[in-house]
């Protein structure tokens, strides 16, 4: 057992951390207000290999050999420390790329990889509420809300037993700007007897795998947001003076921060463990990924709410970063539905 990072992991963590601290944190507030990412995101992130990191090398991507969900979790944590909304845009193409790469027909691969290698993005939507009805090869109902869906060329749809790649061209796409992850190009899509190309149905595929990938990444990013919220809170508390001393010296506020960071540290390890189990095809991988999301959701909820508390009145206004983080926290627990409920029903 070795908790140390190997050279490649070390390199990726340092690179993404620099990117998150220097760029994402700088862009976060404006992107949040604008409800859109900065133009530079695509180019800068592209140079770092995002968007095509899960696209096979022979298809013009960067994936050579097996994809590492552990590395993705390490990366996701750093991205979350930067900006949850921009992180979502950088991560949302991974599930479609991996799923199509694993189970897609050559036609599906050609279509998706061609888009991704030309600067397009894709995203994954899990119909957790049973809002979509499948009639033969036709889908009817509402897709999303999902991040990236407003600009995605393709969406990987999981509903019931069906996992399929759906091109968004010609569909009724309704871009929306929720309160959280505002810059993440959300949309809903209304499917009206939309036909799924037989070639684009991913047969012998595992929706459970895709969900485990998504949950692991969500959990890691959530931990990053939780830690970032408390980093801001600590910096603020060191300066802010009340009752004659920096509020950072008040035991009650120290405890709020410390408890949140302890939960986040434990949740991060669980997310990394899930990533490692996915990489090693461990039997517990799906369960660990789900547990990681449960506790990471608790961590980000608590950390962001308590970070606003530590900021006091300043935490409630848009001039300071934690107000955004409290809004951003919600999507981590909402996407794909209530994780605890899913676990409980699965164990009945």
């Amino acid at each position, binding site marked *: 057992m070795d908790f140390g990072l190997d050279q490649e992991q070390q390199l990726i963590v340092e690179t993404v951390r620099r990117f998150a601290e220097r760029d994402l944190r700088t862009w976060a507030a404006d992107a949040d207000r604008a409800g859109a990412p900065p133009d530079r995101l695509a180019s800068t992130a592209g140079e770092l290999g995002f968007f095509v990191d899960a696209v096979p090398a022979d298809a013009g991507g960067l994936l050579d050999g097996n994809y590492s969900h552990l590395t993705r979790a390490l990366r996701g944590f750093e991205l979350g420390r930067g900006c949850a909304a921009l992180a979502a845009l950088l991560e949302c193409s991974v599930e479609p790329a991996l799923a199509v790469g694993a189970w897609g027909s050559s036609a599906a691969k050609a279509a998706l990889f061609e888009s991704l290698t030309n600067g397009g993005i894709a995203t994954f939507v899990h119909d957790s509420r049973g809002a979509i009805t499948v009639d033969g090869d036709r889908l009817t109902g509402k897709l999303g809300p999902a991040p990236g869906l407003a600009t995605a060329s393709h969406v990987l749809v999981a509903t019931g037993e069906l996992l399929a790649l759906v091109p968004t061209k010609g569909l009724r796409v309704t871009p929306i700007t929720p309160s959280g992850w505002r810059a993440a190009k959300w949309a809903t899509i209304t499917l009206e007897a939309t036909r799924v190309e037989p070639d684009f149905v991913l047969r012998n595929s595992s929706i459970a795998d895709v969900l485990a990938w998504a949950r692991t990444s969500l959990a890691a990013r959530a931990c990053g947001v939780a830690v970032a919220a408390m980093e801001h809170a600590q910096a603020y508390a060191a300066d802010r003076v009340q009752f004659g001393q920096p509020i950072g010296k008040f035991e009650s506020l120290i405890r709020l921060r410390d408890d949140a960071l302890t939960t986040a540290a434990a949740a991060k390890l669980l997310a990394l463990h899930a990533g490692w189990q996915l990489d090693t095809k461990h039997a517990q991988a799906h369960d660990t990924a789900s547990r990681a999301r449960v506790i990471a959701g608790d961590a980000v*909820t608590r950390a962001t709410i308590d970070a606003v508390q530590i900021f006091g009145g300043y935490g409630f206004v848009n001039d300071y970063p934690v*107000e955004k983080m409290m809004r951003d926290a919600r999507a981590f627990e909402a996407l794909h539905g*209530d994780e605890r409920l899913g676990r409980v029903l699965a164990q009945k």
Partner: protein
Amino acid sequence: MDIFHDSPLFSGIRQMLNAFARQAIRPIAIEHDRSESMPWALMKQAATMGMPQTAIVEGRKKLTGVDEDPDPKKPKSQARIAVAGAEELAWGCAGVCLAIGGSGLAASPVSRMGTEEQKQEFKRLLAGDDEHGHIKVAAMALSEPGTGSDISGLKTAARKDGSHWIIRGSKQWITNGKSAAVYVVWAQTDPAAGRAGVRGFIVGRDAPGLVPGKKETKLGIRASETAQVHLEDVRVHESMMLGVASESSAGLADTKKMLDSTRPVVAAQAVGIARAAYEFLLDRVRSSSLHGTPMASHQHIMFELSEMLMEITASRMLAHRAAWMADHHQDNVAEASMAKAHSARTAQHVTTRAMVLLGEEALEPGHPVEKWYRDAKIYDIFEGTGQIQRRIIAKTLAGQNPT
């Protein structure tokens, strides 16, 4: 009619305000949250139906239709009326509720400490509409950038110049700070005297040197305006300084007492938010199914609803008790803080859990539960943070003076 409200008066007010919240507030709440705008039309409507901005100055008669028993020893009903009403209005929308009641923060010290002349001036400045046809509102200008929970160190200073005071300083977190027609500005008149030197001044919007500053973009309660106010050597006639008449009731100490009295009301607002989210989830659960089974058949969801109801009920009782004690002239400092701290936690917990249980639905723009989640947070911050409330409770436990 429950144990705390032994007169039909209360249920009447509750019904009236619930209908008002349901029919007038709910339909406009989401839009004002989105646009961060004050509900001027509704505020005028509210004023005409017994909730004038000056209600507190004029006494509760307009609101309740009954006169308080003048005998100071007899139980009053104001605190319980305010608590019962606040829950209903905040159930409609906390931001709109605060917009409607925003002037009350300023009116309260005027009604407590003001001379007849000051009350008349205050009401004169609030009379009629402004150039936009909006009713006029007042602002309580107390907080400052440096003073959040700790209001003993006010930086805004007032120095005497003949028969006038000259006020200089900056205020922050001021409700109605940009739109007010009249401000009650708190300033230090005698640094040596510390807290006892702090006084309130009635200042009209057009007083030279009074400059409204930046309006804040907030996480929640966005229908209520919060802005900075700058005072650049504002001249105020000494006759407009509050608390001269009765030295005993003068100054900040009394202001804090006034803030104490608002805690049960603020607590009730938090209860209203929690109840709104709880009822939304309950309606959804009753009407929806989950992968083919009724949502109401799932313990996972129903037990959380039970928890919510338990916490909401407990918070409401704490708020009602604190108000009941105030109406019965009992010291309720610790009880008011318990009500405030407990209901703030309940509001945050219930709205957060409701969002989680609703899943992706609650991510849709303009979803009411998502708004209530953002609105709830302020209740653990303003009017004394959750830490301040616990500090007050702890001091009473340690046998110290909580104020």
